[in-house]
C-alpha cells in the first residue's frame, strides 16, 4: 500500500467533497453544489473543470435566460475512481502488518 494508490485528482478536499455529493444524486445543479460546498462560483468552476477533464463528471446546460442552469453528474469512471480512492484511504488508516519473520531471522533468534 502506498500513496500512489490515491487518485491525484481527488486529494484536494474540495474536489473529493464535490464528487462525493455528485455520487449521491443522479445530477446536481451548479448553484446547489456551490451552496452545499460553500465555495465561490469561480472556485467551484475551477474544481469542476479538473473533474470534467479527468472524465469523472459530465455537464449539461439547460434552459435560457433566467431559467438557465448547469447540471453536473458523476460518470461510471468517476464513481470507480471515487470508490478506489476511498478504499485507498481506508487502507492508509489500517495499522501496518507486522513483518513476517524470515527463516534466517528466526534461526538467529533461537540460536543463543
Amino acid at each position, binding site marked *: 500500500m502506498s500513496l500512489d494508490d490515491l487518485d491525484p485528482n481527488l486529494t484536494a478536499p474540495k474536489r473529493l*467533497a464535490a464528487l462525493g455529493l455528485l455520487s*449521491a444524486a443522479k445530477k446536481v445543479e451548479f448553484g446547489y453544489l456551490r451552496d452545499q460546498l460553500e465555495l465561490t462560483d469561480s472556485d467551484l468552476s475551477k474544481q469542476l473543470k479538473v473533474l470534467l477533464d479527468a472524465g469523472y463528471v459530465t455537464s449539461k446546460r439547460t434552459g435560457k435566460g433566467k431559467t438557465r442552469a448547469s447540471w453536473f453528474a458523476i460518470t461510471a469512471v468517476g464513481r470507480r475512481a471515487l470508490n478506489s480512492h476511498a478504499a485507498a484511504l481506508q487502507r*492508509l488508516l489500517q495499522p501496518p502488518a507486522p513483518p513476517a519473520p524470515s527463516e534466517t531471522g528466526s534461526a538467529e533468534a533461537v540460536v543463543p
Partner: protein
Amino acid sequence: MENQKDELDPKADLALLERARWSLELDQALDPGPWWYAPLAAAAIAAATLFSRNGSTGMLGLVMIASLMLAAHDRYRRPVRPRPSMRSATLVVPIALGTFVLLGLWGTAVSTIGYDDFVPGWALLGWVLTTALLLGGRAIAGAVRDRRAPIQ
C-alpha cells in the same frame, strides 16, 4: 508526493466524503417542498379516515393523486435529481412511517376525548404540528451542518 503526504489526513478525507453524501441525502429527505408536504397531507387524510367512522376513501384517493401530480411538477424545479438508493430509503421510510404513526396518534388522542365528529380538523392540526416538528428537525440539522468547519 512528500508534500502531499504531510498534508494528507485519510480520516478527515473519509469523514468529509461521508458528510458530503449524507448532507445531500438528508437535505433531500427533509426538503420542505410539495414532494414532502403533499404526502404529509395524504397521510393526514389517511389518518382521518382511519380514525373517523365517516372517513372518505374517495377524498384520500383525490389527495394522493394531487400529491403525485405536485411531486411530478416539483421534480423539475429542484436543483437535485435524487438517486434512489438503500441509504436514502433508510432515511425516507422511517420519516414517512413515523409521520403516519404520529398523525394516527393525533387521531387516537382526539377520538379518546370524544371529538370524533371533528376528525379532519384535528388531523389538519396534527399535520400542521407534525410539519412544524419536521421543520424544526431540519433547522437543527442545518445549524449542526453550519457549525462545521468549511472545506479548505
